[in-house]
């Protein structure tokens, strides 16, 4: 029997080595796998490269990992936010490396890693400073830069529901980077609010097929997601 379900977030992040590249889903806090990142904080791996749209919000999730000095480099599109004080401080003091990637190139590089594409020509960033040092080409009269896939050792992603085969569905705009990151890592770990029985997810609506997922952990229904959660389900 395939069962990718593990009992708690600590099991879910076990084995992550120092120096790993970790893909972390989320756009701000929506879809950000906070329970997995908290477990990673306890787990101890350091010298990490983190790929995530933002570079941490407030003091939880990625921000907490940054604050603990466990991240060597961040690859992201939008580090500067009203509540990115942890990253901002590290960046200004030269304690962290930043690779800034336009958001669409970040998503496409992750997709390319998952889909076996060797490299691709993108118009985004052509003629700007993010193209510095990159190969360019004119195709059909338009300028493009060559971008390479972005692979992760681990992906930590936040989703909504899973089954024991690792099939995932997401919820609203918390979907964001989860589906592409799930395809781009050697080991993909998903935190979901709840694991449902095999066959309970409609095959037409699965967003991430289980083939891309290695470990699943349920972290409990969240409050304030009233639209499809019956009161009896809220306590987990």
């Amino acid at each position, binding site marked *: 029997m395939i069962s990718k379900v593990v009992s708690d977030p600590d099991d879910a992040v076990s084995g992550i080595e120092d120096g790993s590249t970790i893909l972390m889903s989320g*756009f*701000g*806090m*929506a*879809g950000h796998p906070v329970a997995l990142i908290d477990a990673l904080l306890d787990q101890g791996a350091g010298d990490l490269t983190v790929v995530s*749209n933002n570079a941490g919000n407030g003091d939880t999730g990625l921000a907490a990992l940054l604050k603990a000095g466990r991240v060597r480099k961040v690859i992201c*599109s*939008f*580090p*500067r*936010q009203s509540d*990115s004080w942890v*990253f*901002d401080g590290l*960046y*200004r003091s030269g304690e962290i490396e*930043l690779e*800034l*990637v*336009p*958001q*669409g*190139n*970040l*998503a*496409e590089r*992750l*997709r390319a890693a998952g889909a076996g594409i060797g490299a691709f020509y*993108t*118009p*985004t*960033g*052509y*003629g*700007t*400073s*993010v193209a510095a040092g990159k190969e360019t080409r004119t195709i059909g009269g338009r300028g493009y830069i060559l971008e390479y896939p972005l692979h992760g050792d681990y992906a930590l992603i936040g989703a909504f529901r899973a089954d024991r085969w690792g099939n995932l569905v*997401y*919820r*609203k*705009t*918390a*979907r*964001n*980077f*989860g*589906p*592409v990151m799930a395809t781009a890592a050697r080991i993909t770990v998903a935190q979901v609010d709840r694991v449902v029985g095999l066959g309970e997810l409609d095959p037409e609506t699965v*967003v991430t097929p289980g083939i891309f997922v290695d470990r699943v952990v349920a972290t409990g229904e*969240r409050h*304030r*997601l009233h*639209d499809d959660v019956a009161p009896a389900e809220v306590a987990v």
Partner: protein
Amino acid sequence: MKGASCRGVDRRVLAARIAQDIPEGSYVNLGIGAPTLISNYLPGDLDIVLHTENGLLGMGPEPTAAEVDPDLINAGKLPVTELPGAAYFHHADSFGMMRGGHLDICVLGAFQVSQAGDLANWHTGDAGAVPAVGGAMDLAIGAKQVFVMMDLLGRDGTSKLVAECSYPLTAARCVSRVYTDRAIFDVTRYGLAVIEVLGDSSVEHLREVTGLDLIDAVPKHPAATAVGSAS
């Protein structure tokens, strides 16, 4: 009237003016900041489909406090709602939609726009600044029409409409039209054309404060001044 002493229209008036140029049936991305205001002025009885690059078409207005959902936010990470007819998708699909030229209009803020339509809106180039580009470059190269919404002059009185951008570019030759508090400009192959004057400004005044050779394309007959959808 002289220099910076002219008064422009305020942001809400400008947002309402831009809303008039968004035709029914358009797929539109309203950038973070001031452009978000435009959604308040889109007629509720028209089907205009708003895109937010974090994975939603058919974005609705701000929720009530009781409706706020942490999983439903816009690109500025503010809570929003979904309308009937909405669709969610992941980031690679969302940016494919943008890069692939499917959005009709995006409206972006700017630090500077050049007379050739170059856009600078992501980085001041200051050594101490934490750079952050987000989806701006994808929107700038991807939408069929790129509208900019900005004040014509910075706080120090210098023009944000410039001969050449001094700030790092977001994308070259991407802007179609610039909506400022003092006038609306089309980017044409012959240079910037003033198509509508706002507040108590004038083409003469605009030339003076920008230092640019502006083409006067303001319709001379008031009956014809209502600018429809951008061409």
